[in-house]
């Protein structure tokens, strides 16, 4: 009686229900497309084709997915400890400083595989530092993390404008960005990975940070379900009073969890900065921190769910851009609406169809039992 819903088989729980939610989201999105007088099937074609139709398109989709894996994992880690980290945006932004410093320092003298590890450490360090303060404020002062992380997003934004216009900008340049990095500050593309499947990556910036994202996903799984710290985090997330009883320090876990979360968000900066633009620009995060919340929600805060959810959102970003290109009456904003619908149905309303499906399965179960009985008789 603890949960009003009976248990469903795994494939229904983690496969069928998300798929149904997704299908409904797309159906409603189709209606919206119809409303502005366009053909939803055509839009669907452009979406899918734009996301997967060519090696280059797929490369872009996976490039975006890489970003969202990092920010999705960041939100998920905090969530397991019962913390709602809305500050992925700011943590990723500040994480960029670590990447930029490593690249500016060594790009002309060292190869990428020397710069990359340093940039990873740098991004994780700066991201963690930016999340440390809200974590510490909650642990010691009781300031709610949702509020402080949102405020820290704004502070990060101002800080970065200052740095990019006054400090990190090369002399004489007009643009608020660092100088372009030499070869040592650019990550190799994963063209060979797509080539295995006979695809040509073209100009897509799909790069080795994708592999790092997969490694990070595995490490998060290890952390949450296989380490003592993860055990403590989950205990606190489910029941703070049980954590206190067990002698776990709430403030210590809060601070450490937030730093891990911030480090993951910070590592997101590697992908656009070293993987695509070879420089740090203003606003390079572009809302990925917030998309991470949707990705974590959809992926049920489990790495195995976050990766496909991130690919889905990568597809929406890349394919959505394609739609607005091919069908001018569907603007960028429409794409945002579609993304919103996906979040709505897959995240916020994820339980909408569950009772009906549960009943369907219960009925089927009964029928099976009856059949078994009559056979037995």
């Amino acid at each position, binding site marked *: 009686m603890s949960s009003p819903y009976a248990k469903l088989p795994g494939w229904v729980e983690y496969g069928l229900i998300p798929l149904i939610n997704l299908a409904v989201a797309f159906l409603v999105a189709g209606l919206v497309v119809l409303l502005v007088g366009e053909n939803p099937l055509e839009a669907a074609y452009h979406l899918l084709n734009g996301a997967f139709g060519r090696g280059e398109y797929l490369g872009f989709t996976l490039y975006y997915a890489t970003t969202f894996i990092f920010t999705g994992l960041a939100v998920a880690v905090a969530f397991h400890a019962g913390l709602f980290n809305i500050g992925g945006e700011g943590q990723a932004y500040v994480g960029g400083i670590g990447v930029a410093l490593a690249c500016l320092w060594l790009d002309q003298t060292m190869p990428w595989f020397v710069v990359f590890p340093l940039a990873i450490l740098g991004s994780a360090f700066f991201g963690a530092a930016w999340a440390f303060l809200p974590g510490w404020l909650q642990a010691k002062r009781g300031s709610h993390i949702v509020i402080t992380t949102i405020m820290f997003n704004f502070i990060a934004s101002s800080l970065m404008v200052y740095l990019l216009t006054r400090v990190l900008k090369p002399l004489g340049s007009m643009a608020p960005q660092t100088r372009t990095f030499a070869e040592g500050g650019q990550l190799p593309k994963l063209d060979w990975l797509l080539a295995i499947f006979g695809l040509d990556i073209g100009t897509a910036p799909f790069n080795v940070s994708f592999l790092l994202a997969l490694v990070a996903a595995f490490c998060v799984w290890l952390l949450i379900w296989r*380490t003592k710290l993860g055990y403590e985090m989950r205990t606190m997330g489910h029941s703070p009073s049980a954590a206190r009883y067990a002698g776990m320090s709430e403030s210590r876990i809060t601070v450490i969890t937030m730093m891990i979360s911030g480090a993951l968000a910070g590592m997101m900066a590697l992908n656009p900065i070293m993987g695509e633009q070879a420089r740090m620009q203003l606003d390079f995060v572009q809302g990925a921190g917030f998309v991470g919340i949707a990705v974590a929600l959809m992926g049920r805060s489990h790495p195995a769910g976050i990766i496909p959810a991130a690919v889905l959102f990568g597809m929406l970003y890349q394919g959505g851009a394609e739609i607005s290109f091919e069908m001018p009456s569907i603007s960028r904003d429409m794409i945002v609406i579609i993304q919103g619908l996906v979040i709505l149905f897959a995240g916020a309303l994820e339980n909408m169809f569950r009772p009906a499906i549960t009943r369907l399965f*219960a009925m089927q179960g009964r029928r099976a039992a009856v059949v078994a009985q009559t056979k037995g008789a």
Partner: protein
Amino acid sequence: MDDIAIELRGIDKSFGPVHANKNINLKVRKGTIHGIIGENGAGKSTLMSILYGFYQADSGEILVDGKAVAIRDPNAAIAAGIGMVHQHFMLVENFTVLENIMLGAEDSQILNKGIAKARVELKRLEREYALEVDPDAVIEELPVGLQQRVEILKALYRRADILILDEPTGVLTPAEADHLFRVLEQLKSQGKTVILITHKLREIMAITDEVSVMRRGEMVATRTTAETSVEELAELMVGRRVLLRVEKGEAKPGDVKLAVEELTVKDGRGVTMVDNVSFNLRAGEIVGIAGVAGNGQSELLEAISGIRRAVSGSVLLNGKPIEVTGHADPSELRDRGLAHVPEDRHHVGLVLKFEECENAILGYHHDKRYLNGVFLNIDAIRKDAEQRIAEYDIRPPNPRLKTANFSGGNQQKIVLAREMERGPDVLIIGQPTRGVDVGAIEFIHKRIIEMRDQGMAVLLVSVELDEIRALSDRILVMFAGRVVGERNPDATEGELGLLMAGVEGRKEAAE
């Protein structure tokens, strides 16, 4: 009188491999109080959840007043005149009594009209069944006994003729329980039918007309209460003879293990809950703390075990101080030999969403046995859990099952096994047998006494006077935060009752 209010025919229900209800047949006569008893995990709650539409039976039929009805959800159950009072109340904490009672049964779109009508109806129900509550009181400010009354009113407001109560007295003080029984008698005299699940055979004998016994998913017997005895029922439940009061030899108290000196504890609002309490606990003895719930026993346990900060006073564990007024660290206290079975297993002692084996290490997760560096040693954890499950007969014996899916009594055994099996010097234990069946009570009591005989010091808090008297070597009575008296276990119930009510105590303190 011989009308059947509810008939269950061939109800069957499995949860995966667990066969919770096996071909259950049951007839409940109209206008009677029908008890259902059975061991932990026998399937009582499951059966009632099927009747109330929370679960669907795999097969079988439900007849209400002789007519077959399909109860697909609680709404259908309410429509069929069935109401349920849950063990864990389902009330909106910050709503008033009236708002809670109306919730989901608002008669009119215009709330004001509905409220006025509901108020009138509520008054009528209160009068008819002697169920006074202030309709404008906010739920969270009411004691549990009154909250339960609201649940009953809620069911009656929805015109329930049949009322199911699942372990209603587990959370009540004896006085509150008495009042509940008077209400149930009243309902019965008005022609309502009551189904009562409880582990307390005394209650069954006192109030029911008939009683049905379940064992391992089966309905094994139905008896007319007047023609049976506590011993027979206990034997039917467990399938063997049960010692209702375990044998216990003389205590051989040794060194002082826990010394509490002038301890004072306040709650969050600054109200003094424990007032200048001092006592000693020696190795090899069981000290029981009796008292009506809410007289400071909970806060005393929490302060000693390092969960709640005390205002003043000191506690020595094995002669060394516990920082009760500072940052006592519960895990350090565990290392120093203090184990704690908390009163509230659902929110404190267990994480219901964890697998059983994850709960089996809660608080002991620093133990090197369970770790490989920073990683958990899953194999060792599961192996230990399996061993505990076997020793304590925890059912079903699956360390990977989610804790919420164990029945209440088995959840309690998970906590007890974890805290007792490491052989601590001092065991503090709150409500050890709340919601636990007679067979398991016998087991737990024997175990506690065994531990005492091996030299463990046990501090026991229980609202069950029977339990205190059966186990304790010395009884301290708490009233309004103070220890108002110390008695031997052969003190009469009446004597202890007066102390607990604060009557005797005041005289004694004055002398």
